[in-house]
């Protein structure tokens, strides 16, 4: 049977653990529900630090997002247009790399510990990777922000994608490398935890959350290899002047080798929450554990050999390999579509447990006043829209209409900007009390916050998609040109600009609301309060017990993933390096 019980209170298959005296703890004279922080105080402390860095970078990144939304729509310009790219680089790096990576490693540290029921094996190891990631963030962040000050001779206005031959200060690349190396060590921490669990449970199925953590990390190891080679072998020596030139197409290809799987590194932790926590919050159980495993195995196999779909419009990449990447990308829809089924079925099950009836009226029986539930549910709905615009991006032909237009940020603000970000915020309303031992404060603000985020994103994203169809580019301080004006398909440019500015403002309000709740909980809530949140996760309706054991064979799936990567990348990468690994070469163009 699946060992999904944090403290093995019961071993009866298919049952939730009975509450016993073990479920309660007495601290300073008050008895309260035993939370994660009581069971694993060290792991809880690590998660608190990770969430702290994550939310801090979210605060700065969100403020910069507001500055951009108002600047590029011409509503309010507080910076020079040349500085827009510094702000944009910081927004991308802080939100897409720092907020995500720290948030994800925090979630995984909690999930792996909780589901295995084993504390992390070495505190020194845990602090090593947290320290490495934090140092990397400080290096990269400070070189980016230095770009705002002309007196400081460092700058990194190269955006989140840092395409050579635009050249950032070497510290930027070193920082990016440290952030990734830190996440690698984090994976080691969790695999060691698994090994310890396995020695005590030789015949058990891998607990579901730990299975998800490990498949995601295997995918991450395979995919970050690309960016690691790009940064360590090429960009760092090049920015230090040790090598004179790099091949811009090769470094760009290595970036996108990592650049698509990274979106699954953002998404899979959200999926983990949708599969394992959302059904409980809806009042029910996960529909199927084996199907969840199939989904994560598919992501491990298919996430990496798809990077060329970001390079459909690139010269130097044979069209045949673009076609291969397109086919793989389309098959990646399968695990997401399966997730859609399981998530909706689990929510419906929960609603019916709560007394919901009818074909659709069960929707009304869901706890729409609980921010943890509403945030995750709304992020799932928005991911549906993001998934459809992603299917359009994946279509090679139509991609030529939208590549590098505002359509693309319109798309990924639905995926990483909502499916991931709103899920992390929402699960924090449920999880932060468990890792701090403090009750949530400002619960009214929290209850409204997911709706505010949803509204802001509807306004901003729909207008970005439509503006992209008209040809308005992304990544620019001023999208209006003297030479021509845009022909729009639906609506007018001025109306889209207003929706983007308004949506960006509403999103910023949503971010502030979330941060206020977290700050108030952290600082104002008395420690060891009478916690109401119950961290137990119920058994799935269909457990892993009778599913094929091969699903848990992580070595096999990793090997398959490697083979697919070699097939998709072997020949094109070989042809790029065959004419000289550094040529056709480009000298640095410092920003």
């Amino acid at each position, binding site marked *: 049977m699946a060992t999904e019980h944090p403290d093995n209170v019961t071993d009866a298959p298919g049952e939730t653990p009975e509450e016993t005296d073990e479920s309660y703890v007495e601290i300073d004279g008050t008895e309260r529900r035993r939370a994660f922080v009581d069971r694993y105080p060290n792991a809880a402390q690590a998660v608190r630090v990770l969430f702290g860095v994550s939310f801090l970078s979210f605060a700065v990144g969100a403020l910069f997002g507001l500055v951009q939304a108002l600047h590029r729509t011409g509503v309010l310009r507080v910076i020079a247009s040349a500085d827009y790219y510094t702000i944009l680089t910081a927004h991308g790096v802080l939100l897409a790399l720092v907020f995500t990576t720290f948030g994800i490693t925090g979630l995984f540290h909690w999930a792996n510990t909780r589901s295995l029921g084993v504390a992390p094996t070495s505190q020194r190891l845990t602090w090593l990777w947290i320290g490495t990631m934090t140092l990397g963030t400080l290096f990269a962040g400070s070189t980016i922000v230095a770009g705002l000050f002309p007196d400081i001779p460092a700058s990194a206005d190269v955006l989140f994608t840092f395409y050579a031959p635009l050249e950032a200060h070497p510290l930027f690349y070193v920082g990016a490398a440290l952030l990734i190396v830190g996440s690698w060590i984090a994976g080691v921490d969790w695999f060691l935890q698994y090994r310890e669990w396995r020695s005590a449970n030789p015949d058990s199925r891998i607990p579901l959350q730990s299975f998800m953590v490990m498949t995601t990390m295997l995918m991450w190891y395979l995919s970050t290899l690309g960016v690691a080679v790009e940064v360590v072998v090429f960009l760092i020596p090049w920015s230090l002047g040790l090598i004179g030139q790099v091949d811009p197409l090769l470094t760009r290809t290595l970036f996108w080798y990592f650049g698509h799987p990274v979106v699954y590194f953002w998404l899979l932790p959200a999926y983990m929450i949708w599969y394992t926590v959302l059904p409980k919050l809806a009042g029910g159980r996960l529909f199927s554990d084996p199907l969840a495993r199939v989904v994560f195995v598919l992501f491990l196999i298919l996430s990496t050999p798809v990077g060329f779909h970001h*390079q459909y419009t690139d010269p130097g990449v044979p069209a045949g390999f673009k076609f291969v990447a397109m086919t793989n990308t389309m098959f990646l829809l*399968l695990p997401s579509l399966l997730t859609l*089924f399981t998530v909706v079925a689990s929510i419906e099950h929960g609603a019916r447990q709560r007394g919901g009836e009818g074909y659709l009226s069960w929707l009304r029986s869901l706890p729409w006043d609980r921010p943890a539930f509403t945030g995750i549910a709304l992020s799932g709905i928005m991911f549906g829209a993001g998934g459809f615009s992603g299917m359009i991006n994946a*279509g*090679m*032909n139509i991609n030529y209409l939208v590549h590098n237009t505002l359509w693309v940020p319109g798309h990924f603000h639905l995926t990483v900007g909502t499916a991931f970000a709103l899920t992390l915020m929402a699960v924090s309303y449920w999880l932060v009390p468990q890792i701090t031992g403090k009750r949530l404060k400002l619960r009214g603000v929290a209850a409204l916050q997911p709706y505010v985020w949803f509204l802001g994103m509807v306004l901003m994203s729909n207008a970005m998609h439509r503006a992209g169809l008209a040809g*308005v580019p992304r990544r620019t301080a001023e999208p209006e040109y003297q030479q021509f004006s845009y022909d729009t398909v639906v609506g007018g440019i001025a109306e889209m600009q207003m929706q983007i500015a308004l949506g960006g403002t509403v999103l910023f309000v949503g971010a502030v609301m979330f941060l206020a709740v977290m700050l108030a909980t952290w600082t104002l809530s008395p420690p060891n309060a009478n916690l109401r949140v119950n961290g137990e996760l119920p058994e799935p309706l269909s457990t892993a017990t009778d599913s094929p054991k091969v699903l848990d064979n992580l070595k096999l799936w990793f090997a398959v993933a490697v083979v697919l990567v070699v097939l998709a990348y072997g020949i094109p990468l070989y042809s790029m390096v065959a004419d000289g690994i550094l040529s056709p070469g480009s000298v640095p163009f410092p920003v």
Partner: protein
Amino acid sequence: MHVHRFEKLWFGAALLLIVAFIATIVYGAAGPGVAMVSDDGGTIDADKVANGNFNQTDNFRSPGVYRENGQVHVYIVARQFLFNPGTSQAIEVPANEQVTFHVTSADVMHGFNLAGTNVNSMVIPGQVATFSVTFDETGSHGIVCHEYCGSGHHTMAGKLTVVSQSQFELAPDADAVEASGGS
């Protein structure tokens, strides 16, 4: 392992959708003939482009519009923060006949997009992007650099004018190149 009937149905429907998507793309390539930018353009030394030594390359010519073997070819160099030709003078091409573009970069990465159309390519130093377009209508299109290329990126744009075939004339020097049988 129990797989619910609805799960099986959904699995089948999802696979069908995926196969249908791939089929539409195959149709787009085989039917209307939507072609990808590929590696046909070959590689080029970005230094030679930056210094204007186009006669030392075998797959690029001095920026401009040419007729080669009866077909219209446009050679464009993108650099911080202009298209040559395109920014200071509009590119003029004829309607209803195939026009082949060759675009490369003199410095960093740029983009080349005729706003609101599917004429869209990355411009990567060291690579020549080659793609063919047939314009059905006369009129003008804005050229946008859609990849961040430095602090003046938002000023990098240009214009392309499509004229009727009777109005289309090549610049005299371009004719001269054709007469001398250049590549």
